């Protein structure tokens, strides 16, 4: 082994240094590890224990029922299956749209001509929805934009004699309305990450492409995308996890309705836990969802060959 000083160290010295390093590493990470276990591990463990009980807040204490809640959720509760499917489909749809739009906007922002003139202004503008609390944005969309009686969207639609957009009617309006809001609200985050990635590409690569006469589309497809693929994967993974646990927007805009149409896994868990008081059942639903999320994220990272890309 080569020491940090570049010379060959004696075996004794290597061993002593390693032990010190190990001790230092252990003591350094111990507080963080303790915090992670306390705020992450303990709640997960508690949720799992709770999920094995028929525990109702209004009828304590809980009774141990093993995997009863899990079996009921997966075999006897189509509402839960719907919530899981809706959550995943919505998250995939929203994040794909955000990545596509975010990439295009980031590419424009990274263009030297735009950067030199308007980039700071555009970056400031796109950050506006990003810095406002999701609850505020959701309530604004519900009342001031989408509402048929008070909303601007329908005011303008009626002005040009188009049919109104009513969130509360049919099975498509509410998901579309929430999706549009989510894309507008979250795309800036993706844009910023991708902008940082594109900006970090060595300009000489594009210059070489330009000398070879590569078109804009080919430059994007053959140069930019492969180079920033790891960054896209990170952006997708972050946003996907975030979209899977979405709560505020749906809770404010539709409350999960009409009927059960926009009820996702988070709304389902909160409703069962705090409105039906079935904490054990809600905990089991959250735990299944946690496993689903882990499997999806791990599959995605494997599929995208993330680690190879990073290497």
């Amino acid at each position: 082994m080569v020491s940090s000083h570049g010379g060959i160290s004696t075996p004794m010295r290597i061993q002593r240094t390693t032990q010190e390093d190990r001790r230092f590493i252990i003591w350094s990470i111990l507080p963080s590890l303790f915090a992670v276990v306390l705020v992450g591990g303990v709640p997960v463990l508690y949720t799992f224990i709770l999920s094995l009980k028929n525990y109702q807040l209004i009828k304590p204490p809980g009774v141990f029922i093993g995997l009863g809640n899990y079996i009921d959720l997966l075999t006897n509760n189509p509402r839960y299956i719907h919530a899981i499917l809706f959550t995943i489909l919505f998250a995939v749809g929203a994040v794909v749209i955000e990545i596509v739009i975010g990439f295009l906007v980031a590419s424009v922002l990274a263009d030297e001509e735009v950067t030199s003139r308007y980039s700071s202004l555009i970056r400031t503008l796109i950050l506006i929805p990003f810095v406002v609390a999701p609850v505020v944005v959701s309530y604004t969309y519900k009342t001031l934009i989408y509402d048929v009686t008070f909303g601007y969207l329908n005011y303008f639609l009626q002005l040009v004699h188009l049919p109104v957009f009513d969130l509360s009617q049919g099975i498509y309006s509410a998901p579309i309305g929430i999706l549009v809001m989510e894309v507008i609200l979250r795309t800036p985050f993706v844009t910023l990450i991708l902008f940082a990635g594109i900006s970090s590409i060595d300009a000489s690569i594009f210059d070489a492409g330009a000398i070879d006469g590569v078109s804009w589309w080919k430059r994007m497809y053959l140069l930019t995308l492969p180079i920033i693929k790891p960054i896209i994967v990170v952006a997708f993974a972050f946003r996907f996890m975030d979209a899977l646990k979405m709560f505020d927007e749906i809770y404010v805009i539709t409350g999960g309705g009409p009927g059960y149409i926009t009820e996702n896994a988070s709304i389902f868990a909160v409703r069962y836990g705090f409105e039906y008081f079935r904490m054990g059942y809600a905990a089991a639903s959250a735990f299944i969802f946690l496993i689903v999320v882990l499997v999806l994220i791990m599959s995605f990272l494997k599929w995208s060959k993330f680690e190879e890309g990073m290497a």
Partner: protein
Amino acid sequence: MKKFGGLVLFIFGILLICQIAAADESNWGNIDWVQFKGTQLNVLATSMPVSEVYKSKIAEFEELTGIKVNFELLNDVDRKKKQLVDYASGMGEYDVANVGFSNREEFAQPGYMESLQPYLDNPKLTDKDWYNIDDYPKDVLAGGISGDKLVMIPFTAEYFLLWYRKDIFSLLNLTPPKTPTELKDVAAKLEEARKDGKIEEFAFIERTMSGASEGGWNLFCTAHRLGFDFVDFKDMISYTNTPKGIEIMSFYTDLCKQYGPPGSANWTWTDIGAAAAQGKLAMVVGGNASYAYLEDKNTSKVAGKMGYVPPPMENGKDPLWIWGWAINAKSKNKEAAWLLVQWLTSPNLITEMAPLYGCPARKSVYSLPEYIEAMPSQEFIDSQLWMMENGIDPDTQFLLTPMYGEVADLVSKEMNAVVAGIKTVEQACQDAEAALIKIGFKASVQ
């Protein structure tokens, strides 16, 4: 010396008389209000007009007792969740909290609410003559009793009224409906007038957004006024998918779909109140306590134009709703908490506050000149008194069970799906019943 002694006695006598007069003027009963001086109490309350008034008065309690009060306001959904977590965890963070009628059994049955009778009977803590609990109508006080325990002291008595626009009814020569049939007829005439351009307002609205405390509450109450309950909680029987259940569901959803503003299926109670105050609605079945939103001349376009009558009924009555103050069974300051509950529900404070929120639980207040003066109309007061004496059912079964929240949520989701055009009434009733059977109900055999 004798003269000096006489002077001292004279001054002492004057001071004593002044003290007695002052005590009489403040009139807070014959107990030691400062016995828990230095204690700190945490209070959790739903954000609503009456709570805002309470919050503005808390400094007076702190001055009277030397007790420090942290008065926290949250929207009703969050208030209930936070309260439930505090109760279930046994932390006793909140000493006192308001409790809605439909939450009473949810909190009382697990033993989360302290029994208040011992505090009421303790002369060290309560001057019963001054407090005068008999001032509460029997049915209203019964709203605070779980089993045989008084677990909360009511401070409001609420029920639905039909709000209607007097100017529009006068223009179209209509009279407020008293029965469901009349309601449909009047709504149809209003809608016809809107289509003819005579009026701009939509005819009628009730809440249709899903949720036990949104559309579920209105749906169940409307059914009860028509002599029907979707479920029998005692015997765990569902009547949802019966001909009567389908008829009631049709009545409710047809009215809202045909005569409500487009998009209103997603409206919360606040949205409906705002729409009414902005002059978008001709008739609303709404709570009596909400008159304040409508009659606020600074924010409402319909102040002075609204009429208030009992809601249409047939073979049934309206469920009573009360808000009450309760003490957390795990509170570490229960006696000080009782002083606060007693003060919050005292004849003095209720009398002082009633003109500001309109629906006090103490009956003596309704005849006070300052209360009458503050209300929008004599029709409003008469309607409230009529409801208290004839229109409410204090034993409404569906409100007195912890399962109400889940049941009403399930049924209201199906009702909402009908209004959204996703399901037929028959399909919705069938699905609602299937969901109820899954949680332990039996289908009725008819």
